């Protein structure tokens, strides 16, 4: 018999939970992919609850505009890898659990390496490419998946790939068989987000994880729960297997899928320029610089450029007569799409680059230099 640990006294006291459920948590392992708006609260509660082993996957660094919702980080963390800071904070919160941290974004290969080492996966990412990659890997590797996603004032939570009594499992592709183009939906950097929304949704993801690991029942398998923060309306949809839902047939096929391409992002032959590199690049290469934000968008920038919104580029692509082009937008997503369009219209010898992270990243870099 394990010695009760006073850290978990309130779990022991809880009806239908008790020492037995706590021991299940202590023997369990959870991989949290994405340590951002959803991942931070989920990680805090899972670590506090005493999940025996937690893995954190995130290749991003903390930035100033993260802090209103990514509650693991403080202002002094700006520029540091999220996975390392999260590891440090969570280790302080609960030094009695094992925490692994991985400073990279999830890839097909990494999913195949990491997922078998955990009981449960949490998808706390912020893009469709990662979401479909994680879903497919969970189906192929037989891992239950807690899913959470947000849009403006609304959130979605679901549990995928967890068998019911009859052995039936459903997954993200039963809901949305074909990956949407990433450009169909704006992310938080474009659309904005109220800080508390991922706090609520990420916390509910931790709740689903705990319910599954402790067999508390009433989890969201075969369901999509949606919530509107403004009206407190929630709406639950029931899921059933979709004949159009096709997951790669085996691991080998999965490893060859380009999820970024499936979701209409990324493109070959396009270089990334970091905010740090931009000013040197502009002076040394004298490229044609194109702002692809819509005409009403601010802030204005203080270097020479032309503004051709992405919506106009899509209608008619001008004949660019320049050997070197740099495209930028607010967050680096539309610029990548625009660069992909322009790339296709120009000879291979032309050099097309886009500003990684967009004006937001440039501002944060400038802010960091001035403080």
């Amino acid at each position, binding site marked *: 018999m394990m010695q009760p640990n006073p850290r978990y006294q309130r779990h022991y006291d809880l009806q239908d939970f008790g020492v037995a459920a706590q021991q299940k948590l202590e023997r369990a392992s959870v991989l949290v992919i994405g340590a951002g708006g959803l991942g931070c609260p989920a990680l805090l509660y899972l670590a506090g609850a005493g999940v025996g082993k937690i893995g954190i996957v995130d290749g991003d660094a903390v930035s100033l505009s993260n802090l209103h919702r990514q509650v693991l980080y403080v202002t002094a963390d700006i520029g540091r890898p999220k996975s390392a800071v999260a590891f440090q904070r969570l280790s302080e919160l609960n030094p009695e659990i094992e925490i692994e941290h991985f400073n990279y974004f999830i890839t097909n290969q990494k999913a195949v390496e990491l997922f078998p080492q955990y009981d449960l996966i949490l998808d706390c990412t912020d893009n469709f490419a990662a979401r479909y990659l994680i879903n497919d890997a969970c189906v192929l590797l037989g891992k239950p998946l807690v899913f959470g*996603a947000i849009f403006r004032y609304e959130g979605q939570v679901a549990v995928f790939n967890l068998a019911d009594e009859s052995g039936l499992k459903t997954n993200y592709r039963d809901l949305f068989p074909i990956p949407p183009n990433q450009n169909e939906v704006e992310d938080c950097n474009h659309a904005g987000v109220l800080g508390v929304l991922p706090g609520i949704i990420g916390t509910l993801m931790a709740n689903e994880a705990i319910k599954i690991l402790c067999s508390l029942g009433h989890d969201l398998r075969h369901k999509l729960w949606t919530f509107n923060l403004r009206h407190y309306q929630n709406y639950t949809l029931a899921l059933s297997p979709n004949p159009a839902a096709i997951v790669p047939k085996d691991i080998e096929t999965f490893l060859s899928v380009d999820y970024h391409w499936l979701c209409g992002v990324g493109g070959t032959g396009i270089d990334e320029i970091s905010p740090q590199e931009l000013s040197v690049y502009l002076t040394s290469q004298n490229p044609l610089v194109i702002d692809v934000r819509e005409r009403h968008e601010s802030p204005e920038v203080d270097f020479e450029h032309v503004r051709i919104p992405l919506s106009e580029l899509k209608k008619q692509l001008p004949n660019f007569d320049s050997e070197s082009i740099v495209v930028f937008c607010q967050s680096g997503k539309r610029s990548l799409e625009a660069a992909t369009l322009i790339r296709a219209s120009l000879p291979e010898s032309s050099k097309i680059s886009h500003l990684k992270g967009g004006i937001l990243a440039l501002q944060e870099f400038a802010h960091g230099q001035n403080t």
Partner: protein
Amino acid sequence: MQHNTAIKILSFGLIAEITGPEFSAAAEDTQALQSQLLARFPKLSETKFAIAVNRNIVHGLTPLSTADEVALMPPYSGG
């Protein structure tokens, strides 16, 4: 539009910004409803969404009847 065949439609996420959060339509099945929606809201062709009838996600052609509640649910990607 015949009032006695009105179906209540709820939209979520980006779809709600195109159609409004709630409206009604008349259609005998989900396919007819979809073509009607595309004619009424052309911007819907640019975005994917799942269709639920009475809170059950449906796949393929599904008959609709009076007093059914349809939900148009797009995927959210933010995190």
